[in-house]
């Protein structure tokens, strides 16, 4: 099985390409899904090429539907759009989210100050 990793890339490319596009077709048996998979491949190449992380996109794509459903469910159950700021766990998660956004900016600001000093 380990020998598989030594196969020359030129043999793997057409086989993997064909199998992945066939997989795109097999999901809904729709021909246009193959075209969509090709378009998504080109788009993903652009993302990788220009420094956008693919992993976060995939996580968002996979988790997005679940999160959206849970979000709508919470809103319907509470009838209060601020419910996420009133419960401790969600409040903590929001605080962490804000921290994730703010920390790089703070770090950069501190680094600039240190360099200036």
């Amino acid at each position: 099985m380990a020998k598989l990793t030594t196969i020359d890339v030129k043999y793997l490319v057409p086989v993997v390409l064909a199998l992945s596009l066939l997989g795109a077709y097999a999901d809904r048996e729709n021909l246009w899904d193959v075209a969509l998979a090709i378009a998504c491949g080109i788009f993903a190449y652009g993302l990788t090429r220009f420094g956008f992380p693919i992993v976060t996109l995939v996580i968002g794509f996979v988790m997005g539907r679940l999160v959206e459903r849970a979000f709508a469910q919470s809103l319907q159950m509470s009838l209060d759009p601020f419910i996420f700021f009133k419960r401790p766990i969600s409040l903590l998660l929001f605080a962490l989210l804000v921290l994730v956004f703010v920390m790089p900016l703070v770090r950069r600001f501190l680094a600039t100050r240190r360099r200036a000093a």
Partner: protein
Amino acid sequence: MMGRLTFNLLLLVGAVYFVWSATDFDRQARQIPLLIGVMVLVLQAWVTFKAVTAGDALAAEETSEEPPPLDEARKVAAVCGWMGLYFVLFALIGTLPATFLFILAFLLMQPDVRWWIALAVSIATSGAIWLLFVRLMRFELYPGVLFGGTLPPL
């Protein structure tokens, strides 16, 4: 540099379209899409702005570490062409013949691949697909427009 800027502008247009299409929804239904869309729009506008302002530094980085853009663009165009060819074959003659012909043609175009190896790989792959999808999973592969298949609506 131009590629990066163009790609960022493309994403910005996508974000604008997302917000614009959300405004067509009912008042209740558009709240969340608008909230997410505006956030994405602002972040993408920021990234695009950074791509414009930091253009020279990024261009220097690109030329020093990565292959020449023309060579890379040629390779990308070649792969896109191959994928396009596979799609056309898939639509016209169906899954199995398209897979067989695509792999065979791809391998024969490579400089140091013998014809019988190309033939063996394409037969093996098509055979494995037939065995797995048709025989074991009872899956109906696309027959192709020329052999009775119909193009589904877009």
